[in-house]
């Protein structure tokens, strides 16, 4: 008796597998698609070739003045030459190590959070929200532990941008939570105050808030009492962003079903206990994307401090590109700052998407 042996399957036609098949399915599936693909290829070609030539092939990477950049390409030598100023501002050169330690601590506090296997995420998170800012403040500001004092007008560059963003983020979250709870409070005075506060800050542009903090705050305070310019900017940014944060968190609070509130009350929990143990953990989890978006907005908004005369990374670059020793390097400077911001903002948004997926425990379909 003979076994039934089916013939081996024919391979799929070459036109439907591999690169050709992929291109047919994704780029040339219909006449309209073909036309759009060809148009897009053409636009990419005429845009990317000069761009790559400018940015890489005819670019200059080393040198100390404008004579290094005569090929017509990008002058990255300028960035390399000024990198210390862009990073540290006018911080004294002999004290750079203090900022370096802070950068290292920053990487140490947030790097491991990206790895799923890392065990002490909670402890590290608490460290980065409490001890880390304190250590960095003493390191950067100095004046104690034998470190020389560095006044805030010497702070600048990327380190100032990160300082502004970090303090803003750490301060805006708790204030935002308090405002969101206040807005949903049953006490009319508290609720009215919170609504007025939130709507006032959300209704005006940040730049007018910064103007107000730099022009009007001295008017509001008694003679002789004055804040540091940096602190004034920080207060403005924090107030502004905490109003936005409050609205994001309120969205989360509203999304929690009423049964959760009632269940917490039925268990005899006090207001703060039911909020802290039942409502907020669920609400915050729901709005993580919104919170991170607020952080990203805050991080980008720190650039506005240049208008009130603080030297963040953008202001440092803006003043460096007018240096006659280098000629026309505005585009290079702007591209460099754009890349710095892009790296931070993009990784924050990716991290939030990752976190959202991981925390998406219940109600999954």
């Amino acid at each position: 008796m003979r076994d039934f042996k089916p013939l081996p399957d024919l391979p799929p036609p070459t036109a439907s597998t591999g690169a050709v098949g992929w291109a047919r399915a994704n780029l040339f599936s219909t006449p309209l698609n073909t036309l759009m693909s060809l148009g897009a290829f053409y636009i990419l070609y005429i845009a990317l070739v000069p761009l790559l030539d400018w940015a890489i092939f005819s670019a200059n990477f080393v040198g100390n003045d404008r004579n290094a950049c005569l090929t017509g390409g990008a002058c990255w030598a300028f960035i390399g030459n000024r990198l210390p100023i862009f990073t540290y501002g006018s911080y004294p050169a002999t004290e750079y190590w203090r900022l370096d330690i802070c950068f290292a601590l920053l990487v140490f506090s947030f790097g491991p959070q990206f790895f799923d296997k890392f065990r002490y995420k909670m402890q590290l998170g608490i460290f980065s929200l409490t001890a880390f800012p304190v250590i960095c403040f003493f390191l950067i500001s100095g004046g104690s532990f034998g470190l020389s004092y560095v006044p805030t007008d010497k702070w600048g560059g990327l380190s100032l941008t990160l300082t502004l963003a970090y303090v803003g983020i750490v301060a805006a979250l708790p204030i935002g939570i308090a405002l969101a709870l206040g807005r949903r409070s049953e006490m009319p005075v508290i609720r009215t105050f919170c609504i007025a506060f939130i709507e006032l800050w959300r209704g005006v542009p940040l730049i007018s808030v910064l103007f107000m903090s730099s022009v009007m705050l001295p008017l509001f305070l008694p003679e002789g009492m004055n804040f540091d310019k940096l602190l004034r900017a920080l207060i403005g940014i924090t107030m502004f962003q905490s109003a936005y944060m409050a609205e994001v968190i309120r969205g989360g609070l509203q999304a929690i079903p009423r049964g959760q509130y009632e269940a917490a009350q039925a268990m005899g929990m006090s207001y703060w206990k039911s909020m802290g143990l039942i409502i907020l953990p669920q609400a915050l989890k729901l709005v993580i994307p919104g919170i991170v978006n607020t952080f990203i907005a805050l991080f980008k908004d720190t650039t506005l401090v240049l208008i009130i005369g603080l030297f963040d990374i953008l202001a440092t670059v803006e003043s460096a590109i007018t240096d006659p020793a280098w000629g026309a390097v505005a585009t290079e400077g702007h591209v460099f700052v754009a890349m710095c911001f892009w790296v931070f903002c993009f990784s924050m948004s990716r991290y939030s998407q990752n976190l959202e997926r991981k925390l998406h425990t219940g109600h999954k379909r």
Partner: protein
Amino acid sequence: MADPIKTQGTSNQTKTAIWNDPTFRSIAFQVLAILVIGWFFYFIFDNTLTNRAKSGVTTGFAFLNSTSGFGILMTLIDYDETHTYFDTFIVGLLNTLLVSVMGIILATILGFAMGIARLSQNWLIAKIATVYVETLRNIPLLLQIFFWYSLLRTLPGPKQSYVPWDNVFLNARGLYFPSPIPESGFGLVTTAFVIAIVVSFYIIRWAHKRQDETGQPFPSILTALGLVIGLPSLAFVAAGMPLSFDYPVLKTFNYQGGMRIIPELMALWWALSLYTAAFIAEIVRAGILAVSHGQTEAARALGVRNGPTLRLVIIPQAMRVIIPPLTSQYLNLTKNSSLATAIGYPDLVGVFMGTTLNQSGQAVEIVGMTMAVYLVMSLTISAFINWFNAKMSLVER
């Protein structure tokens, strides 16, 4: 005999410690809050008065009538140094509104295009849109404004202008193009336009009503479009084309005549539009994805063709999701236009809160007026969003 334990229990209950009584607590907290806030505002108010008395600044809005004494780079109304501070307020406000409206139009077009492109089945188109969105929204707006401004300033001078079109010139001084000048009889065209809009409005209402009653659709949008374009064109021809152009002409150093968009406005306009378009693209994409695929399948099952499915089923439901965040993006764009002051475009913040404030020293009044303008705008828009949400929210059961 009364049960001693029970008596104790009831007496305990009636004598709840007063600080454990929720009503008392809530009142106490609120009184405390009023006292703290009241003291805070009194403190600020008192200090402000003292400080101003010391520096000799008079309080009040009388300064608005004094002469400004400075010129402004770009004005939409008639203005020079002899006008008042109040005029600088109007000039700034109009400039802010101008760049906001221009930005909103461009950002909407670009944002919808990019949002739809991100959902395209064409891999390349979808990727280009993704790269656009992810790049532009992760870079600070102020940096983008500086970037465009510095690029525009590297353009050649007036004599080596780019001529992208007949009588359109682009150089470091700005973009020059012919300005239309209405001549006598142009009023007819304007009247025709207004009539067309009014008539279209009634046609659309009538068509809705008829469809509700009889189910008969009427191509009301197409009719309205035809009216709004056709009627003024007819009037234009009938009145003998009463329109001439003022062309920009190269004089010794610069172009004279025509209309000019200053580079500050152009940089701000592009930066605002490109930046906001990235956010609008995400809103549009989310709105389209929010309409469940079951809706498309249901329409197919009913035998509705592709075009009507999109027009009658998908888009109305997507717009319900899109419009509220879209409106708040418009508001953001308007507020972000205040960054104009960084490159010297004379908007409300730059002119009024900048130059006027420095000259007059009336910090409190000026900051208050500027913030009030933005507050009114944003409260109006959020009232609109609330109204829209209430009107469009799904009525269930």
